[in-house]
């Protein structure tokens, strides 16, 4: 449904397109993450058979997209361009060079922004108290 609206947007060039795609990708994934989180929380207790015990530890490294999105919203309040860079790199899959081009900065600056954003986001995701 989100893609339908893109008809009316003038996709001027590749960079614009990827920027738009990153934004949509973020939105879709976050929507799904919220839905599946809601489904897991929802209502009735789940019966677990003995042979269905939870998977052993060690694989529990999956990125929490909702926590990431929340952290990105916080980052946007501090530095909206830096948040945009994260969106392009992570959700859009753009390289440092492509990201630099998209936001009109030098690749060196893009690299610095990305490196510091990663640290900031990691801290925000892992230090925020679980509600």
């Amino acid at each position: 449904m989100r893609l339908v609206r893109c008809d009316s947007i003038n996709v001027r060039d590749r960079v614009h397109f990827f920027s738009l795609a990153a934004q949509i990708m973020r939105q879709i994934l976050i929507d799904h993450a919220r839905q599946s989180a809601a489904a897991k929380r929802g209502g009735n207790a789940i019966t677990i058979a003995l042979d269905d015990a939870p998977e052993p530890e060690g694989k529990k490294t999956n990125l929490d997209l909702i926590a990431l999105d929340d952290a990105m919203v916080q980052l946007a309040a501090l530095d909206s361009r830096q948040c945009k860079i994260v969106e392009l790199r992570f959700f859009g899959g753009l390289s440092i060079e492509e990201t630099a081009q998209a936001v009109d900065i030098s690749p060196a600056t893009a690299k610095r922004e990305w490196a510091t954003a990663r640290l900031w986001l990691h801290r925000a995701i892992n230090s925020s108290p679980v509600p």
Partner: protein
Amino acid sequence: MTPERWQKVKEVLATVLEAPASNRDACLEQLCAGDDSLRREVELLLNQQDQMQSQFLDETSLAEAAAAVLPGENSSVGRRVGAYKTLERIGVGGMGEVYRAVRADGQFAKEVAVKLVRGGFDSASVSERFRNERQILASLDHPNIARLLDGGTANDGMPYLVMELIDGERIDIYCDRNKLTINDRLRLFRKVCSAVQYAHRRLVIHRDIKPSNILVTKDGTPKLLDFGIAKILSPVDDAETVLTVTQAMTPEYASPEQIRGDAITTATDVYSLGVVLYQLLTGRSPYPGHTHTPHKLAQAVCESEPIRPSSIVVRKESLTASNSAADQDFAEVYRAAFG
């Protein structure tokens, strides 16, 4: 933190990150120049490096996170479901996905079909209903009914059903591909009817008879799949509302009473059999032109008279039963089919 403060922290952080590791402390000392809170802030972020996995926010972590939240292509292949391990996805439907599977403990090599019930169903009540029904369903022992073998709740709460794996193709496709004559089609269909009659004698209603639930094996045996499954998956027996019934049926084959939310009886199956037979004989739906919008179709099923198959095909006498099964008066329907 204010945006201005973050610019300052970021600047120091970036410079320190680019400095050679041996030089970092001196660099940090110099840049912070006595500003202790700045230094603490930067150090806190620098420390993240040690805890952070190298793949944090890289492409693979996006792919993994996406796979975890999106319905996904083959997300459940290779998964352990109860005592079974899924091997390959063989079907997708409104209620979930069907996988070819084997016993995970290797006790039996025989392959089975595992149906994973996706989203929207209350897993606790599905498994409770399954426990109530399983004895009855598992006792259905008929050459033209695919056996229900097992079922339960997988470790993420997803209800699943284990059924006899049928290697066959949809009855309508089978008939057309083999260019069966009307007599051959009727002979095949009689076997389907005998399976339904067998189940009805045990007071089990299928509730979702349609071509995709009737597979014909290589040796020409029709097998009816998913007997009684629609009941397990539809919320609350008897007191069902129109809305909830709609979720567990296929409008094109659903009877008027199913669409209206009236009591479900054995005639519901007979009606659906009638629609299937109609299609096998004429190659078209009794309600052509309505099949693409569920609402219009439901209206057509409840309110309009289907075109007599005899006006579509020439072999008139064989078609009488089909047309009356697709009639709306189901008491008459039952008499015509089994009476």
